[in-house]
């Protein structure tokens, strides 16, 4: 090797892609990823069929399928996101990553999008089922597409929260539990039992405002075939606020 006094300053994009590829491949390095994909699909499909009664509902639409996605993401996004920073801290590799010529933001973006893509791939595997339902009933491809877009955005929001939890600790277990609890609150907001509690305490208008902060109220329009600005902005805001805040936490260390 010859000494190169002008060691290149890497292009920012190179670091982002290198991190993204490493992190995405990282999910498949352990059997956990396959367990994860299997669990997601088993639950997504069985909840839709047995709890949601997707057939008896008489309409071959998928809103019963998506109804349970906030629950799934609340559980599985923190499961996939727990390792984002906690694992770097535990292994001590954070000290490498942050002394390599990349900014925290490049690394954070690469990690976040890798995790989001991983969640997206779990979602993609349910597509055959969606097409089956479509085939058996009256296919409305538009509704399927918007439902999947909504679910993917919802996953990003949960991942944003999970990223904050992961940035705060070196334990994946703690990151998972706190991430899950935070997401769980957002799932409860807008669900039956919780709604009744709220209705007892607040005026109707206020209850509706609170509901809008929950995951389901924002996912619902997507399952009806609508890609509205407001719920889209809601999911993206939560996702990127979580990404930004977690990055600031890591940057301060």
């Amino acid at each position, binding site marked *: *090797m*010859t*000494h*190169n*006094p002008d*060691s*290149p*300053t*890497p*292009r920012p994009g*190179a*670091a982002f892609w*290198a*991190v993204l590829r*490493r992190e995405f491949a*990282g999910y498949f*390095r*352990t059997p956990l990823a396959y367990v994860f994909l299997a669990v997601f699909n088993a639950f997504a499909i069985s909840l839709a069929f047995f709890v949601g009664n997707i057939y008896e509902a008489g309409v071959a639409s998928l809103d019963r399928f998506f109804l349970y996605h906030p629950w799934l993401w609340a559980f599985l996004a923190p499961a996939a996101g727990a390792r984002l920073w906690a694992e770097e801290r535990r*292994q*001590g*590799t954070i*000290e*490498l990553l*942050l*002394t*390599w*010529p*990349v*900014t925290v933001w490049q690394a954070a973006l690469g990690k976040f999008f890798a995790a989001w893509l991983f969640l997206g791939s779990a979602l993609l595997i349910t597509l055959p089922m969606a097409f089956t339902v479509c085939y058996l009933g009256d296919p409305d491809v538009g509704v399927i597409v918007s439902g999947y877009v909504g679910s993917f955005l919802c996953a990003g929001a949960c991942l944003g929260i999970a990223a904050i939890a992961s940035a705060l600790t070196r334990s994946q277990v703690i990151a998972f539990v706190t991430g899950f609890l935070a997401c769980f609150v957002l799932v409860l907001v807008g669900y039956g039992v919780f709604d009744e509690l709220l209705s007892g305490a607040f005026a109707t208008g206020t209850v509706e405002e609170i509901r809008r902060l929950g995951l389901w109220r924002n996912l619902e329009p997507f399952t009806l075939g609508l890609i509205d600005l407001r719920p889209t902005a809601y999911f993206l805001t939560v996702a990127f606020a979580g990404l930004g805040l977690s990055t600031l936490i890591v940057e301060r*260390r």
Partner: protein
Amino acid sequence: MALIEVSHLEKSYGAIRAVKNVSFSVDRGEVVGFLGPNGAGKSTTMKLLTGYLRPDAGTAVVAGFDVVENPVAAKAHLGYSPEGAPAYGEMTVREFLRFAAELRGLTDPAQRVADTLKLCRLEEVAGQSVDTLSKGYRMRVGFAQAVIHDPAVLILDEPTDGLDPNQKFEVRRILKDMAARKAVIVSTHILEEIAELCTRVIVIAQGEVRCDESKERFLQRGDDLNQVFRKLTA
């Protein structure tokens, strides 16, 4: 200008003042041995110098770039192996080095990885995951990622810690081969390593520089280096 310029560095962890007004500079061709008792502030100084931690006061300049003002440029000229040589355990040695090369934006990363595997004698474990390596190999992987871009400045936190005599010899040999072209700082608890490896000694205790001189002068302080060390750090 020296490759490493540290002036008036200060760092506290809460109430603990880990680094107090530390200043020194290191030129190309120098190998500086960082000595000091446990908790002296050696690792903290290295973390400040590599831009992992932000100093409370003072500056660190690497290859002409201030690590706080211009961190990416400074880090591009820097190789660093933290204490314990952390690495992504689930990756193979080759994948790990490849990642380091890509992240640094090196041209022809495959060639760099091959060269570095050879230089650090890691070829036979290249396909093994880092988690399964013996300590000697693991430390060498940490060393390998630090030199993959042939940096002007090399900072190694206890690179020979826990190695058997053969492995220690091996690491020192590789280091000596490249030292003439670099500014190197190596922390160690092995006093004999000074005579073997270093051209200069900096002794740190309680966050302060207690002595900064050439190896020759340091060795003249006494025949029993342990006693010299005890006196300086008391």
